[in-house]
Structure formats: structure tokens, C-alpha cells
């Protein structure tokens, strides 16, 4: 610690250069904090305990292929299947095409399969008897100031209604809330409409559903139930693939791209650039201080002490920028989540991200410092003092 003022002073010898380098490091670690959050949230997708008790059945070919609605009754007959619901992707936008909302046309029992969310009995009754009724998540309702009784115009980016227009009108009849008040559930940011109304009102998709959700009585029997469900459609024109909700989500994400790989690739490119930039800064900073480092050695600092000072300076530089960047990511994540009204659920920068981040900072600091530190260590006092 007694050398800290010396390291600090050396670091800020050229304030502008150090500030600009710090901004680069800060930006890289802000990005790291955000992207690692995205990677973590995708990796954790569907990892709820209840998820293991729910199976999702979709087309074996692609998640955009639909299945016959008649399959519901047959799935319900599979031993171990408790309840079977189905849903279609609606692809709704509110007011502006940019305001995409997660909106699904669902079977009447859909909400029953998700015990982690609930609506009041009165609202549930209202939903059951209102053909154009929708249930909206409380997070989404808060974002757009929706309340029960409001008309909800949604524009589907896929399905036209009976008039040929993609503008649909619904009535908000209930609010979906998490069963546990401190919980956050995906359906709190969604709109659920009647599949029957959707099915009868659009000319394209009569009697077809996007996927089935089956609750199983015993999670330990999930594999067997899944195989039995898929056997129902084997060798048909609508072969299915049944998996746990978690696996289904992961599979769906994989069809969009390997998020983990994308994140790691982006961060790799960012950190590689950072390595070159910071490495150049450190090399320049040490080169400028050749005579000062020679003086330190002259007055008795050992070569190893000089090596340690330069390495410490380099690590401190990256740690400073990195911790501020990660701290900003930790602050901005929840703000962005709140601002998105539940559409974007950025997890807080967790202990694992901090540990990985700080580890990266130290590694980058050591990497960019090792060459200039080595040069400083090998510095010949007489030559350096003579300016050779």
C-alpha cells in the first residue's frame, strides 16, 4: 500500500491519455456486464422447478410449423399427462410496430397450467365469458397504463382478422399477477387472448396450434410422457418433438442462434481490441518514463520491485475502468429492465459475473503490463540515465 501513491501518480502522469484509456476499458466492461447478463438469462431460461413438471410439444421440423388442434385430446389420454393446454404466437404490437408485446392465443385452461401466475376469480370468469377478452400481465399493464375495462387495439405482424386487416381489438378483462408478490414471471409481460376467437377470426390457421403445454403429475416420469406424446404423431405429416419447457426454450433460442457463442465472440473481439489499445498505452507510458524508472533503480529499487510497480500500474488501470464499467452495468441493467416494462428482463450483474469480470480485469492488466514491465525490469541504469 505504501507504493500506491507512486503507482497512482504514474498512472495519471498523462491525464488525458489515461482518461481516454479508462473510458475504453469502462465501455468494454459495461458491455461485458450487459452481455454477460444476457448470456446468463438465456442460460437460465425456463430453469424453474415447475418447468420440469411441464412439457412442451412443438413440430419436429421447426417452431414455426403448426400442429392440429385435435392432438389435444389424444395427448390428454397419455398416462401421466395431467392437463394439456395449447397456444399460438400472435405477434402483436401496441400503437407502434416497435412496441412489440408478447401476445398469445391460448386455450381456456392455459393459465391453469401456470400456478406461478394468477388472476382473480372474477377476472377469470370475465375472461371465460368474453370472446374478445384478454388477460394482460401486470408489468405490461403498468407500462402502458392499461386497466380492466379498457379496449386494447393490437396490430398482429402475422395474422389478419376476418376483415383482412391486421388490426385487432380486444377488451382487457383481467390482470395476470405473480402468485408470489416478489416473483417475476414471463407471463407478467404478456397478453393472453382466446385461441377460439383468434382461430375463428383469421383465415389462415383454422384448427392449428403453435404448441402444446402438458403438465405432468410426476416430474420423474417426464421423459416417458414426452416419448409417449411424440409416439402419437410418429410417421405422420405433423411429427412432434416434446421436451421440458427449459429444453424447449433453449432449443428455441438455439434456432435463433447460439447466444453464448455470439456473446463470447463479441466480447472476445472487444477484449482483443482493448488488449491492443491498453497495451499500447502502457508501452508508451513506460517508454516515456525510462529515466524515472532508472532513477528508482538508482536509489535502490530492485529490478523485481520495478517490474511489480509497472504490473501493478497496468492492473490498477484496467481494474479502475473495469469496476466502474461493471458497476454501471449493474446500475443500468435494472433501469433498462424497469424501462422495458418486463419485455426485457436484464438480470442484475451477479457474483459470478463480478468474479469473471474481475478475473478478466486482472488477466488483461497483467497481459498488457507484462512486456513494458519486463522492459522496465531489464532497464540498464547507466544507459537509461544517459538517454541511450
Amino acid at each position, binding site marked *: 500500500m505504501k507504493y500506491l501513491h507512486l503507482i497512482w501518480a504514474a498512472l495519471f502522469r498523462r491525464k488525458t491519455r489515461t482518461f481516454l484509456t479508462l473510458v475504453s476499458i469502462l465501455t468494454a466492461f459495461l458491455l461485458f456486464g450487459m452481455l454477460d447478463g444476457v448470456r446468463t438469462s438465456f442460460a437460465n431460461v425456463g430453469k424453474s422447478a415447475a418447468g420440469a413438471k411441464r412439457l412442451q410439444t412443438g413440430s419436429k421440423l421447426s417452431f414455426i410449423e403448426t400442429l392440429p388442434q385435435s392432438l389435444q385430446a389424444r395427448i390428454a389420454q397419455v398416462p401421466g399427462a395431467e392437463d394439456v393446454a395449447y397456444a399460438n404466437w400472435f405477434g402483436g404490437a401496441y400503437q407502434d410496430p416497435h412496441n412489440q408485446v408478447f401476445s398469445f392465443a391460448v386455450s381456456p385452461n392455459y393459465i391453469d397450467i401456470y400456478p406461478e401466475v394468477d388472476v382473480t376469480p372474477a377476472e377469470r370468469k370475465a375472461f371465460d365469458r368474453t370472446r374478445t377478452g384478454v388477460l394482460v400481465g401486470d408489468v405490461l399493464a403498468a407500462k402502458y397504463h392499461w386497466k380492466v375495462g379498457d379496449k386494447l387495439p393490437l396490430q398482429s405482424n402475422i395474422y389478419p382478422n376476418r376483415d383482412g386487416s391486421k388490426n385487432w381489438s380486444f377488451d382487457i378483462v383481467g390482470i395476470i399477477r405473480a402468485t408470489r408478490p416478489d416473483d417475476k414471471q414471463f407471463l407478467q409481460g404478456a397478453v393472453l387472448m382466446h385461441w377460439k376467437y383468434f382461430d375463428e377470426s383469421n383465415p389462415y390457421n383454422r384448427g392449428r396450434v403453435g404448441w402444446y403445454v402438458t403438465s405432468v403429475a410426476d416430474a420423474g416420469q417426464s421423459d416417458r410422457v414426452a416419448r409417449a406424446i411424440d409416439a402419437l404423431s410418429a410417421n405422420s405429416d405433423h411429427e412432434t418433438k416434446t421436451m421440458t419447457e427449459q429444453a424447449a426454450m433453449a432449443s428455441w433460442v438455439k434456432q435463433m442462434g447460439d447466444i453464448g457463442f455470439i456473446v463470447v465472440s463479441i466480447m472476445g473481439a472487444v477484449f482483443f481490441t482493448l488488449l491492443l489499445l491498453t497495451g499500447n498505452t502502457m508501452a508508451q507510458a513506460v517508454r516515456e518514463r525510462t529515466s524515472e524508472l532508472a532513477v528508482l533503480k538508482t*536509489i*535502490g529499487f530492485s529490478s523485481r520491485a520495478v517490474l511489480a510497480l509497472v504490473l501493478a500500474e497496468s492492473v490498477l488501470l484496467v481494474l479502475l475502468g473495469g469496476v466502474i464499467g461493471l458497476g454501471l452495468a449493474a446500475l443500468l441493467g435494472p433501469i433498462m429492465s424497469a424501462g422495458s416494462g418486463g419485455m426485457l428482463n436484464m438480470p442484475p450483474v451477479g457474483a459470478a459475473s463480478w468474479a469473471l469480470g474481475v478475473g478478466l480485469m486482472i488477466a488483461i492488466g497483467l497481459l498488457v503490463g507484462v512486456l513494458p514491465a519486463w522492459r522496465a525490469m531489464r532497464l540498464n541504469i547507466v544507459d537509461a540515465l544517459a538517454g541511450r
Partner: protein
Amino acid sequence: MGNLIEIRDLAKVYTRGKQKVEVLHHINLDIAEGDFLALMGPSGSGKTTLLNLIGGLDTATAGSIGVGGQRIDQLGAGALAKWRAANVGFVFQFYNLMPMLSAQRNVELPLLLTKLSSSERRQRASIALQLVGLADRASHKPSELSGGQQQRVAIARAIVSDPTLLVCDEPTGDLDRQSAEDVLALLRTLNREHGKTIVMVTHDPKAAEYANHTLHLDKGTLVEQAVA
């Protein structure tokens, strides 16, 4: 008083590319404890090389150097660094202060290598600055001080760990006449009143007048010894 420095058959050869240049030839020299010696000679005569060898900044090609009974030519790099920290203070022509540190912090630098506490370091640096007449400039950075003041801070840094030997390489070479005289007077005070042994390289005969002895080097050989 006995000899502080004893040099025997000292030679230094530099290798520049394929060429070998013998800078010092078989130097024999004794410097008494408490002496103030000026080394003079033309450029390239080997005076700075000799000073560097005495101060343990460079290693001899042949011969021996004893300082305070210690054969410093036999010390490894690490031991030599420790020896310098404990026994030698250095004053350079261009002051060589850390530009980003205050005068106080510059003077404290050698004390970072000791086990002194932060307050003890601060106290000793303050005393050293007081001794060179710059107590009121402790918080100033080198860029806020004149050349003469910077050199006095450098002298404070050189004496703060109370070394027996001060090696000064052209300490007045970058100063105006008045500042040079102030610095030389300070060195003489350190020699006479504080018993520091001083070896000073200079081109300036007036500077050499402050020393007790002057030695002349030419082409790597001691050619003349004069008593001031």
C-alpha cells in the same frame, strides 16, 4: 580518518557492437571518509563511468572497488540495489525528480525501501527539505520549482536516508551561477557539518573549488591530483 573508498586496478570496457572500448585503465584511488572530491576531465575521459562504478550503478570489468569495507564489485544486482539504498545518495545534472510527485513525496522515495512508518517517512523528508532550505516548498511539484530549487530537492532526496556517500554528476551543469553557488555551498555544508563523503564530477573549475581535492582523468587514466 581512514579510507571510505578503495579502488584497485579498476578497468571498464564497454562493448558497442563489435567494438570494445576501454573507458577506464587500471585506476587506483583511495578516497578518505569525509572527503569532498571533484573529478574533472574532458568529455569521454571516463569520469562519469568512474562515478557510476563508485556509486554501484555499473559493474567493473576488472579490478576491485571497496566502499566502507564492502567489496561492491562482488555484489549481485539485487544486493547492489540494497547497498545503494543504504549507503549512497545520488545527485544528477538534470535533477531527475518524479514530475508527478510533490517535493515532499520525491524526497520520501528512498525511504519507501525502509521499514519506516508513513509518519516517520514524512517527518524525515520534512527534515531533509528543511536542511536544504525548502521546507516551504514541500507540496510543490518539480514543475513549480526553479532549477536550483529542484536540485536542492534532489539533494534532500539524496541525503534523506542518511547515506555515508554522495555521488554527484555535474550537479551544477544545468544551473545559473547563483543557483550553482547555492547548491555547491549546500554540498560543502553537508560535507563539513554532516560528514558526508562527496564525489562530484564537474566540468566547471569554479565548482571544483568547493571540493577538498580535484582529480583529473584523461582517456581513462588519472593524470593529476591536486589539493584545493
